[in-house]
């Protein structure tokens, strides 16, 4: 018998299971930010963590509409399936979706092939994000980052203070105690709030499974056209994918463990077509989820460097 949401009840009387505790904590953070900030926004990246975060936000403000818009930073290099999922998901739920693209970057033809993943990410993601936050006048932005993802994330606060340039100063973070968060900022400064800070990848998958949360089909194995480069499988998602001379895409059963821009995201050979299959594979794997992310390998401490500049 497969477990359902109804089974997700306290393990003992007056005693919450770990997922219920994580859920309660996230809802607390979501409500706290909405109560204390004037213009919150939720960064929506279409991935599984975003799906969980939006699900939790629906729970926090149940019966009502979300009291903030979703913001997607579209680099124009996302998987096509991500974009169609985003549009139908937001339409079905009646979410207010704002999409921001660095138009200048597009005009200048910035792409992951010619400019390298690092420069490309800075221009199309970090700069775009900072511009979107500034234009929207947002004083708080929710992000779906988790502390178990990467080691500089492990040190980040739930309310991560950013100066007027969106920069993170890891050595000068505000102390954060209990569940009492400091929401004081000056005009122009902002807070990035991370309701999923204490969730792990396993928690996310268990929760998606138990709560039946919709996710992009790319997480499930299917036959997809891929090329193999330096041991990484890259999906040929559209005609913009540059093939090396003699390189031919072939159909393989693959899935994705994390989702980003398709030329920068490695696929896994897999036959997992259901959530329990995915969880089984994840539990038995020997590699962390960020292994498939090319942008994190650029330089040592690259995530920290990106975050200092204003990346999520």
């Amino acid at each position, binding site marked *: 018998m497969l477990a359902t949401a109804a089974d997700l009840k306290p*393990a003992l009387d007056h005693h919450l299971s770990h997922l219920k505790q994580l859920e309660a904590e996230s809802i607390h953070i979501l409500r706290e930010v909405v109560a204390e900030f004037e213009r919150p926004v939720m960064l929506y990246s279409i991935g599984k963590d975003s799906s969980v975060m939006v699900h939790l936000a629906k729970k926090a403000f149940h019966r009502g509409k979300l009291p903030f818009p979703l913001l997607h930073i579209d680099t124009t290099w996302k998987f096509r399936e991500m974009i169609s999922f985003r549009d139908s998901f937001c339409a079905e739920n009646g979410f207010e979706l704002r999409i921001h693209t660095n138009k200048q970057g597009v005009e200048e033809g910035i792409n992951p092939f010619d400019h390298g993943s690092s420069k490309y990410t800075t221009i199309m993601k970090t700069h775009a994000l900072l511009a979107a936050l500034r234009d929207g006048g947002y004083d708080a932005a929710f992000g779906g980052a988790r502390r178990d993802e990467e080691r500089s*994330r492990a040190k980040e606060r739930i309310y991560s203070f950013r100066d007027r340039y969106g920069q993170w100063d890891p050595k000068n973070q505000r102390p954060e105690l209990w569940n009492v968060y400091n929401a004081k900022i000056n005009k122009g400064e902002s807070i990035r709030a991370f309701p999923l800070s204490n969730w792990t990848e396993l928690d996310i998958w268990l929760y998606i499974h138990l709560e039946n949360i919709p996710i992009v089909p790319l997480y499930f194995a299917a036959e997809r056209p891929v090329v193999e480069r330096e041991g990484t499988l890259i999906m040929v998602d559209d005609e913009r994918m540059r093939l090396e001379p003699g390189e031919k895409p072939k159909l393989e059963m693959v899935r994705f463990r994390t989702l980003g821009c398709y030329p920068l995201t490695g696929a896994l050979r897999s036959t997992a077509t259901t959530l329990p299959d995915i*969880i089984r594979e994840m539990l038995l794997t020997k*590699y962390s989820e960020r292994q498939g992310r090319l942008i994190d390998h650029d330089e040592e401490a690259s995530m920290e460097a990106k975050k200092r500049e204003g990346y999520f």
Partner: protein
Amino acid sequence: MQPTKPETELIRQDIHAYLQQHQQKELLRFVTVGSVDDGKSTLIGRLLHDTHGVYEDQLKAVKRASSRAGLEIDFSLFTDGLKAEREQGITIDVAYRYFSTNKRKFIIADTPGHVQYTRNMATGASTASVAIILIDARLGVLQQSRRHAYIASLLGIPQLAVCVNKMDLEGYSEEVFRKTSAHFSEFVGQLGFRGVTFIPVSALAGDNVVHRSPNMGWYDGPTLLEHLERVPVSETVNQTDFRYPVQYVLRPDLNYRGFSGTIASGVIRSGDTIQVLPSGKTTQVIGIDTADGSLEQAYAPMSVTLRLAEEIDISRGDMLVHPDNLPVVAQRFDAMLVWMSERPLDRQKSYLLKHTTRSVRAEVEQVAYTTDLETLKQEPAARLELNDIGRVTISCHRPLFHDPYRNNRGTGAFILIDSLTNNTVAAGMILEGEAPEARASQRRPVIEHPHSQVSADERSERLGQKGCTVWLTGLPASGKSVIAYALERRLFDIKRLAMVVDPDDGLSQGLERNGSSPEQTPELARRFTDAGLIAIFAYASPLSADREAIRSAVGPERFVEVYVNTSSAIRKLRDARGDYGPGHQGPIAEAPANPDIEVNFDAEDADEVADAIVKVLVKRGLLPSLYAL
């Protein structure tokens, strides 16, 4: 993350059974304290490694870096996350780590032992149910072990686990373990933990961390992991006193009005009568709503939405409680503070205090004592500095609904925020009992005449200068006014705020022309200085008694005496008023004995003199040092 062997089998064969098991896991948060020398990072690395909380690619990266340092695996590399930390080989900030077994999910708050340990440990301890302290078996109980145990108890951690580490280096000796445990037991026995457990381990070799050690047959207690899987998880949550700080009013349409929040403590059932604080009104709970449907009852730390029978005006920051079980409602209380800011506590300043969902202005009326972290003795103190822990009396502008921290973490904890920098400057834990009567001079104004709510430090922080009186003294026509205005201009150009009081302006008209300042000048100088201004006075003030009166009115630390000693030839040349004309007898003057600076017009122009005075102001600490030209 890789599961253990029997789990791997279960996952392979019956993933559904595995999922069933894992969705009901408990959550335990613990804090580890200590420095690299104690082997803390090694212990955590060992815990993560042996519970398969580390992936192959992470392990490879760590092995690569370890070999650079000449080690096989440097476990501390698992935990140091920031570039500066890896470069300097130290841990700067609290890091959170995660691992799980089939019984529990664990959140580790990993706090550094050396740098800023008090602030970081308090942060990590604030959410923990267990504190793990390491003692080096070779060194025995050190002062820092006591200190760490004290902070753990202060933050209300119920369970202490003491790992006597590096047992391999002491030949796995039972005697060493017994002696160390007995020695430390004596001390921690007084700290009020609900449970203290001693475990002999070797983090490096892996003895008794996850796997039972074959080298210590004499030990029949749990391994560290076994202990962490068994220790009670919910002791930090008060299960009896219902406290519900209203967080958010949920009003999606005209037909629905609910009060959202996280239950801080206790249990609420549908139908219960509740009382609203501060209004005191009572009504019934008619619905405990969640997105998954309505509940019959809810308890801490669930996040729910309560619907009430009557329309009562309730907003964020109010608290719902049972009328027969009320919290303390008070504006003044005593608390233990952990000071976390470089800027010391300023008793004149009003801070923002955030407690549950309520934010109020508050002052620290008095400091009863600080705890000396070397001796753990109470020392008298007037203020708190970075990493100090002390007992204080706090006075809020509006009442808080609270319980003593030791009975209720959720309603006994607060933070203080500096309203100028917006930084979190202190963590507070409310103590039992009433606050002592305020001393008359410190009592908040109730009947007393209202007084300024802005302190001198706040002014000086805002203005980037300390208020002071620059007193130019010197014979008539020596150039005091010219210097005064040049100085004013100079200060204005570097964005400082100054003003000139010149005997030739309207203020002093009708006074005798002996160069003395009017009678009210000392009071005037004090007020300008209190306002944070750099007040520049240009009276000849020939009598030293007059100048002393000013000095004592504004205070010597805020008084700068400038002796304008221009030669008589130049004075005569400059003489516009006829002070030195025919018939003039020469003013009598008592030249200052010890001026802060002596200047003259013989060689310098007014701008150069002004610059010289600015330098003096910097030297005296009245202007920030960046203005030293």
